[in-house]
């Protein structure tokens, strides 16, 4: 799905929602921002730095970290291992350090482990630390994905349908987590189909249709916007 003529700026704080009918280009936009797809034209800036054209891992290292629409856990790694692997710039990932600076590596691992355990507690997954990721329920896997993103110390996170397919209790937990993170200063940009949830947590929403941005503003205004209604319900003639 092509995305064209989309231009917007996200402020420094809060939670922004990206909504639109299926196939309107939301996930494509995420791929373009995070470097998984290359832009044909245009540019993306993150904290005043041009990031379009950079490899996905470089963009992630700058603090702009994403999840995927389809849950992607690391099936044969434990929950704790998954979180520890997500820590950025690990000294023990350099071959030379492993043999020449073993102390620094084990010290970093200790801190890494503590932080992973804190995040497990935050997500209420502590009891599952040693489970393989593939053994978790779908909802727990979604939480683990969020935990993985948090381990990478992001400044901004892009969540692609974080509540799709999980039960209402877990959705409540997730909403609280997102609000807590936002209060801690992490900028959140999420694709979501659950409109009541979007209206609850997002200060601002962007609406896309057929690859274009058709609305930017408060969620309450979107509901009265003719173009938004048309995009969701088809042409106004039929809607009536």
């Amino acid at each position: 799905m092509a995305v064209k003529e989309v231009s917007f700026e996200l402020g420094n704080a809060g939670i922004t929602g990206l909504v639109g009918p299926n196939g309107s280009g939301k996930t494509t936009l995420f791929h373009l921002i995070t470097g998984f797809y290359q832009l044909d034209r245009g540019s993306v800036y993150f904290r005043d730095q041009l990031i379009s054209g950079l490899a996905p891992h470089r963009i992630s290292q700058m603090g702009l970290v994403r999840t995927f629409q389809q849950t992607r856990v690391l099936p044969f790694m434990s929950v704790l291992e998954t979180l520890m692997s997500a820590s950025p710039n690990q000294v023990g990932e350099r071959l030379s350090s492993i043999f020449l600076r073993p102390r620094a590596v084990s010290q970093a691992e200790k801190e890494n482990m503590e932080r992973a355990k804190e995040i497990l507690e935050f997500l209420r997954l502590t009891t599952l630390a040693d489970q393989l990721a593939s053994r978790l329920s779908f909802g727990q896997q979604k939480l683990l994905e969020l935990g993985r993103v948090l381990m990478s110390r992001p400044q901004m996170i892009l969540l692609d349908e974080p509540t799709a397919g999980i039960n209402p209790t877990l959705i409540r937990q997730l909403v609280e987590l997102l609000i807590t993170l936002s209060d801690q200063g992490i900028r959140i940009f999420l694709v979501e189909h659950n409109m009541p949830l979007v209206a609850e947590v997002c200060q601002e929403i962007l609406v896309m249709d057929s690859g274009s941005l058709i609305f930017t503003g408060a969620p309450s205004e979107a509901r009265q916007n003719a173009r938004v209604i048309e995009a969701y319900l088809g042409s106004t003639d039929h809607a009536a």
Partner: protein
Amino acid sequence: MDYLIHILIVALIYAIFAISLNLELGYTGLYNFGHVAFFGIGAYSSALLSLGGLPVSLTMVIGMVFAGIAGGLLAIPALRLSGDYFGIATLAFGEMVRLFFLNERWLTKGPMGLPGIPRPSWIGQGIAGLPMFLLLCALLTLIVFLMVRRLTTAPFGRALKVVREDEYVAQALGKNVLSLKIRAVTVGSVLAGLAGALWAHYITYISPSDFTLNETILVLLCVVLGGRGTNWGPILGAVVIIFFQESLRFLPIPPDLGRFVAPLQGIVYGGTLVFLMLKRPEGLLPEYKA
């Protein structure tokens, strides 16, 4: 007794070879079907240099370096290919290296092979040197085992596993996937080069027919049978396979039937590999408890 020592030496050489492949296959998820090329490069480099008069300990190190350089140089373009295509590229590379050994007669003497490769001077030549050679192999296997275990239990090994499990997630988490793979293949190639050099100086004669796809399949079988992604798996696999292979010698096969039975070995190995992949992909020592 000498025969037992011989089998142990071969098993240990294959253990090092299997450990090196496991780093790529087991930990990084890279199906390298040309791994024998680095075994061969290590063997030929060390053999040729030692025949030229350099001390064996030095030529073995040079053999490892050459294998590592070749591995890195192959990895840079080949790793831009994904999944199966990487397998095909490495398969082709393995054949290219074998054909190089076969055709560059000025250097490798072609199909005649290289006879009279010296053993390290502090190890006796011929049968008298067997126990010392076993000691050398055991020591090197131990060092390689400890080194690879250190790598795979460090964050480096964990990052390799993330790449194996899901490259997109690895990228999203800020891992430089290409660099991690190149490093895994380079280290794997250096260790394969060590195994190859040991082989050359142990057998004392090498020819291009020692470095065919069959050897890659054999070492692949060692890794898969033993348990990929584990530290002990490749060693167990190598010991089981080599002892099994040697035990076949004692089968009472009438000489007339020998030429029909010999190719069966390949069929048995190939069949076992397919069976394991289908029925027990985790091998004898599974990476995770079921």
